[in-house]
């Protein structure tokens, strides 16, 4: 069983988000980065499958500038066997299709049985990359996985639907599955894992270039302002004015 886990490095939820001077993207120096939350669950799911079957290989794959090697190391320390780093400058923000192309090109020859990725990234939240890669590589795909069960050539996936409903789907391997947070209990890298990670291989891939179909015009913090209007009068007048405001000004009823 060969499992790829796609991990993304994203700004931590309490990190400040300073914008760079030409307003093209964030100023990365002021940001503290972490592994995308659901990618961490995807990694754990892959490691558990490997441990249960007592054989196989888990490969961590990340795309981005050199700083992403931090999350790659974290994945290796937790127990992944090796890693692929697709190098790309962070100022070329790309759309899911071009990112998926880069991933697909880099891993096509690896012939993975499974690709796990987080359901979506905590920064851009496109939620498509894992599925597009699966389609490009001719794999079965499923999103929003809450549980997985593996048996001879088949993977059963419990998918989260709306309103507390679930759907079980059976798919043939190979498959690319995007994982929802909370389906397992992620581990913390042990000391032995951290030491061992240093000896593991990180294969660095530098793609020739990619087709950018989408780019940000201007990045800025939304203006927020607060307006307080005092409504005075008798209760009936206040109610009338409120309803009027709800209907015509704020347009919520």
């Amino acid at each position: 069983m060969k499992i790829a886990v796609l991990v993304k490095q994203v700004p931590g939820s309490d990190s400040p988000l300073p914008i760079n001077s030409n307003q093209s993207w964030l100023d990365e120096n002021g940001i503290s980065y972490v592994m995308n939350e659901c990618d961490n669950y995807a990694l754990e799911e892959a490691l558990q499958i490997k441990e249960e079957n007592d054989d196989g290989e888990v490969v961590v794959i990340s795309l981005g500038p050199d700083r992403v090697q931090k999350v790659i190391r974290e994945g290796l320390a937790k127990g992944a066997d090796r890693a692929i780093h697709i190098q790309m400058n962070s100022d070329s923000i790309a759309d899911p299709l071009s990112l998926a192309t880069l991933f697909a090109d880099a891993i096509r020859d690896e012939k993975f049985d499974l690709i796990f990725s987080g359901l979506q990234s905590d920064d851009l939240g496109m939620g498509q990359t894992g599925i597009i890669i699966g389609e490009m590589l001719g794999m079965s795909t499923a999103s929003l996985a809450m549980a997985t069960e593996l048996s001879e050539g088949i993977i059963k996936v419990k998918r989260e639907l709306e309103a507390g409903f679930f759907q079980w789907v059976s798919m043939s391997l190979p498959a690319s599955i995007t994982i929802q947070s909370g389906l397992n209990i992620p581990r913390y890298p042990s000391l032995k894992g951290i030491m061992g990670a240093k000896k593991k291989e990180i294969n660095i891939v530098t793609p020739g270039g990619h087709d950018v179909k989408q780019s940000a015009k201007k990045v800025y913090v939304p203006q927020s302002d607060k307006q307080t209007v005092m409504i005075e009068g008798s209760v009936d007048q206040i109610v009338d004015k409120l309803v009027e405001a709800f209907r015509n000004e704020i347009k919520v009823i």
Partner: protein
Amino acid sequence: MTQIEFTVIEKIILSLGILITFASFIYEVWRRLRIVFKGKQSFPLDRFGARLWRVFKEVFLHEKVIRGRFWPGFMHALVFWGFIVFGLVTVDHFALGFGHELMNAQTHKLYSYIVIPFSIFVLIGIGSLTYRRFISRPKTLGKISPTSGFVALFISILMITYLLGETGLSPIVWRVNWWIHSLIILAFLFLIPRSKHLHLVLAPINIFFKPFDLPDHTPVNIDLEGSEDELDAMLADLTEMTKNQALDVFSCVECGRCIDVCPANRGGGLLDPKNHFILDLRQPLLDKGNVDVLSEINVEAGWECTTCQACTEVCPVGNQVEKSDEIRRLEVLVEGKVPQEYQKLFMNLQESGNTEGRTDSPLAERLPTYSPDKEYVLWLGCFARYELDPNFTKSVENFANILDVAGITYGVLENEHCSGDPANRLGDKLTYNMLREHNMEQLAHASKVVTLCPHCALNLGKEYAKYSEVNYDVTHHTQVIGQLIEEGRIEVKKGSNGKVTYHDPCNLSRMLDEVDAPRTAINATTDEFFELEESGRNTLCCGAGGGLWWKKETTGRTHLVRAEQVVNSEADTVVTGCNFCYGMMNQGLKPLTPEGRSEIQVKDVADIVSENLVSNSDTK
């Protein structure tokens, strides 16, 4: 007193009896001590005089035995003192068996004037203890123990036979009586090492060797550049107990006082320090014949501990009870099993050097920056720096105001990272070492550090010193304030805060041994100070220690027990000296205060002093 010649046969039986029971006694004690001596580190012998003094107070005067539980403790003291008095008689007793009594009839007679009342005291004592063990049966004593019954019976028979021996018995009855007495002593000797009654031998030794430092956790040095063998050896070392810890396990008298004071247990948690941290290790030690048993500690219980050290403080036989550090570091460093909220905490610490994953601190920007011409580094700590309770920033500014008025110069470090307390207490020694090394660099040129956080004070001082030499002095702000008041460098008037009480933070009172300075400061501001029932070194933890501030779900009410006591105390103002206690009180008091009662004010020592400061400029 009757005078009797024993027959040769009697002498042989007596000799054999003594020989066998003594041999077995020594063997059993030796078996345990051999395991103890396999422990890591050596027994501390520093401050020899202080150790002897401690033995005198805690063993001979029974200070802790009595303070912890007055009546049972006093009854026990009667038994204990009785035994000391009896020691001499006993030697004489056996000497008599061989026809060489040590005391002549005259001395014996005189001594019996002391011994007879004591034998009655012992009877009263043991009778009350037995009543407690078998009839009133408080929960913390645990299951009924048959050995307690035997021991009580033995001691009573010894006393009764002694008293009979002192009356004018006929020679034959006296002889029978003498034999009963002797056999019971031998049976007692047989039972002691096999039960909790070994405490009567080990408690004095254990109290003598007990480390002075709290908490007595060993440093964990991690060399990420080292070889795999070195790493394996280091990890194996983490499962091994120290000599002190192993001796504790055999000294425990199973009294359960540690359970009574445990905030996690009182809050309805699972943690039971007597069993989880002490008795659960007794059988594994004996079975393995070695000390690598720390992984036997219940993991869930280990995560519940607030590391408040109340258990260690109360233990009458000198045990360092708490072992959450021992099991947590195994879970983190070896198993990689860490609750999710703590993984996030550790990641924040690694990424941003603080618990919250933040980079900016408005408070730090408002305060002056440290430069070497200033007297103090004002160490903020993450709680104040990143406003874990936004109200606390005011307390920091109040302390800064006090320093300003006293004309003391200070500044904050621009690159202060978390002191590492949460990582240290939660077992992530790798992250702890990273933070420690960073901070040691930042403090390289500092000579005096003052902080409002006792957790930081403990780590920057005592804990860092376990790893490398620390060249600066760390003081807690209450100590600085207390001193300024005593030296008359600031003037404080009595304010109006109603009835004022003080909640001793565990880290300040027990670990930094400071209970006076905050009281000096508070008493300067009020005439209506009163003590909570559990105060000073016997304080009750607010529930936030040991990294529990960051714990999302708590099974019990550990975080409310102390706040509830404050509400029930009728205080109008509760003062504390720790940012975490301050935050816990602020969260806990409001929902617990009954309707109609006015809100209880929560203040730091710095607040109450600053508010009542007479800032007349002519004092400086």
